């Protein structure tokens, strides 16, 4: 089964060289584990837009988004055999990345129904 993990750092200061190094080491470990399919960062909403479809009417909101702090969101997609493996990977990542919050979402797959 596959999971999408996202992470928002509490602190938006750019990471220190030490943290960068630790994060680099962590992603090498993730790659070596054979579980990582893809990883990357999502840039702040200010560079994107919010979209909606309401009653057949499509709207795009370009901002400014005062309510959202400018922040980069990290994501990773992993292929594992249990949700607990994803939790363990996330725990290890956050131990390196620092305070923040995230979500673990299962991606729909051939053998993964929503109630699986």
């Amino acid at each position, binding site marked *: 089964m596959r999971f999408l993990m996202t992470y928002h750092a509490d602190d938006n200061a750019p990471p220190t060289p030490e943290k960068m190094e630790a994060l680099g080491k962590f992603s090498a470990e993730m790659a070596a584990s*054979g579980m990582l399919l893809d990883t990357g960062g999502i840039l702040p909403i200010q560079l994107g837009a919010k979209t909606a479809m309401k009653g057949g009417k499509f709207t795009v909101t370009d901002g400014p988004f005062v309510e959202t702090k400018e922040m980069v969101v990290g994501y990773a997609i992993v292929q594992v055999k249990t949700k607990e*493996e994803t939790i*363990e990977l996330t725990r290890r990542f956050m131990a390196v990345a620092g305070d923040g919050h995230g979500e673990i979402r299962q991606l729909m797959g051939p053998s993964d129904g929503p109630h699986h």
Partner: protein
Amino acid sequence: MSETHRAIRAVWALEAGKLIARLTRMVRDVGLAEELAQDALVAALETWPQGGVPENPGAWLMTTAKRRALNAIDRHKMLDRKHEQIGHEQPTAHDIAEQLETVLDDDVGDDLLRLVFISCHPVLSSEARAALTLRMLGGLTTEEIARAFLVPEATIAQRIVRAKKTIADAQLPFEVPRGEERAARVSSVLEVIYLIFNEGYSATAGDDLLRPGLCDDAQRLGRILANLIPDDPEVHGLAALMDLHASRTATRVRPTGEPVLLLEQDRERWDRGLIHRGLASLARSEALGPKGPYALQAAISACHARASRPEDTDWARIAALYRELVGQVPSPVIELNRAMAVGMAHGPAAGLVIIDALVADGSLASYYLLPSARADLLMKAGRLAEARVEFERAAAMTKNARERALLLERAASC
């Protein structure tokens, strides 16, 4: 299973290979290393439910296993003294304590690769290699392996015990093979991973056509290997092949369990992410060197992946790739696939020429896909009565209940 137990299994899936690899370097005995690692797992199962999962579970397991290793070595030395066998190459407790300082911190990759080579050593049967690799590198339990291969747990347990004994008896070195031996040993590793994948992808027994858990394990092993041997085109070729095949998993079987042929699959539902990964691995493989058997098979699979409609398939290219493949790996099964591709590229009559040569050759006499393929081409050539006989012949030969039903249905449609 409690929440902590599931968490421990998750840690195990991540740590088993590294732990066993490091311990093997220390105690120079893969069987003992595996036992020490298992002991550490048992200790975790006993203590973590009360105290919680430690901050660094990998290091916890390593420290526990190390302590047991030192005890085991002490016991060993005592026995040795009793039997007056001092002098052979048993590492001392002091050696190990010294090793530990460096081992804990350095890159585990080399040890892991040594473990891969020893688990997939050609001296072991392919079944033993698969079981050992899943247990030591995939972190699967004996029970999980048994369930995956549909055999009793005792069979797998015995297979693993025998394999460890074979390794000990043959005194297999814990090393990365070099020179001429290396290519053969790498291909032995790839063979094991592909065997595991195929066991999941095209189940050879039982009523289910797919056991996706094994495919996941094999794909993970393929990625681990691509990370350990990044410069080998065939390693990336196999990773590509598995991802491309796995991209079709959702469409290969109907909800009712019947198989769906490649050309009848709903291509909209092929997994774009896996196709993308597969094509990227194939490109990496091609950049590293000429195509070997896995890269060729991946290139064939890629022809299908690139065709958004069945009629867009580049059959001439597939036929040419099969010709190259059969040149490298002379096999009647590959020749049969080539016949099908030639039939698609240049008409059923051209394909039947190749198939009829295979029938005359006789080496596929008990292979149900031969009459099934012949039936398919006969049907396309409009020779319906002959096609029906061949479909029925194929149905009588297959062991898989779902396949049989499909073949009988096709016979009835002729």
